């Protein structure tokens, strides 16, 4: 059971290698069954894919076939799906959960997602200014907190688009 983790946080868990690993890091011939669903649309429905890179709250991680079962909340960020060698698609998601199940299945439930090409840099910039203005304004604590979360999402969007 090999997993590739590129984490930003300092505290790291040692990946357990005591299972009978049948393959190394390089061979990705097995595929993992991905079901990525939004409330209004199903992007992937039990499709075999090679690798999925998700923006987990604990850090970015790549999920390959036969990953250890785990539950990961997702922060607003980019999810990349590599279907076959060479082809990959990216979506920006607003948040949700990614669950790897014991039977080599990965389900991602996201509230909103859109391909990176669909975003307009101009609108992001304007909305970010607006959100920052409200966050530092004199509304209620709840409004300011919402605006701060909004600003974080826009900043993450800018970062995602900048490093496309």
């Amino acid at each position, binding site marked *: 059971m090999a997993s590739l983790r590129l984490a930003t946080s300092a505290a790291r868990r040692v990946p357990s290698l005591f299972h009978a690993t049948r393959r190394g890091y390089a061979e990705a011939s097995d595929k993992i069954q991905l079901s990525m669903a939004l*409330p209004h649309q199903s992007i992937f429905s039990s499709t075999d894919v090679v690798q999925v890179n998700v923006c987990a709250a604990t850090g970015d991680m790549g999920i390959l076939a036969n990953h250890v*079962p785990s539950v990961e909340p997702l922060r607003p960020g980019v999810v990349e799906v590599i279907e076959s060698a060479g082809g990959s698609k990216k979506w920006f998601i607003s948040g949700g959960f990614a669950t790897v199940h*014991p039977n080599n299945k990965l389900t991602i439930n996201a509230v909103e997602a859109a391909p990176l090409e669909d975003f307009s840099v101009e609108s992001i910039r304007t909305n970010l200014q607006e959100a920052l203005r409200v966050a530092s304004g004199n509304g209620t604590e709840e409004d300011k907190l919402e605006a701060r979360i909004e600003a974080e999402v826009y900043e993450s969007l800018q970062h995602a688009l900048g490093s496309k």
Partner: protein
Amino acid sequence: MFARRTVARVVAQPSLLAAPSNARNMATLREIELRLKSVRNIEKITKSMKMIASTKLAKAQRAMQAGKLYGEANAEVFETAKEGATGSKKLFLVISSDKGLCGGIHSSVTKATRRAFNNAPDSPLPGVSVEPDSPVMVIGDKSKAQISRVYPNNLRLTFNQIGRDVPTFADAASVADLVVKSGVEYDSVVIIYNSFVSAISYEAAAMEVKGEKALKESEGFKKYEMEDDFTKDLAEFSLANALYSALTEAHSCEISARRNAMDNASKNAGDMIGSLTMQYNRGRQAAITNELVDIITGASAL
């Protein structure tokens, strides 16, 4: 003498009854006309309601399909974590809506809730015993009225103004939020809704969503690794997801049931118009015939 008397009697009878029967026919003719007019109006109304429901149905079904896939992806965790605390405290969340004229939609979920409480053999939760003091929350005024008659002490929260249009994730999320914040203790939430069998039939079904504590105690759930403890977030998110899936399916069932109900109503109205028109024409012709008989016998008596 005999002839004169019989003629007199024959003449007398129609003239005796002619005025009142004519009057009665005129009165019933007027009544029949009024009824015809009102049934024709009703037919127009039910036909247009059926048209509206048909156009809404396409959109609702698309949302339902997406919602079902979303719910299935969400339910995968609960498949693995199936074994859990038995004898757990269940919170029933009944999904209906505020509007009527949709056939037996609302009574279907209410009856399913009753069967679950009575541990009936055809309960939507087969083989699970439900405590009589289980809390119940209702979405939709129609079912609220029915349930508050049967289980008034179990009602905790009710929601309305949901289901007027295709349900959005925001609706489901706000309901889930209020459920969690309400402070009602539960181990799992049982969502009772109408599931879409076909365009002409639906049946009540139950969806169980485990709460945070039940998830943690479940053996299957322990297989999942988590860096920090996200069980509470997962439980709340899953509740919103399951609720969204159930809401879209229930909405779709309601629209298709309304379409069928209005279709039947229009057909019945059409039948009534046919039979009333026959009656009206027969009455009209009878009145004319009677008048003719009067005139002719009057003329022949001269």
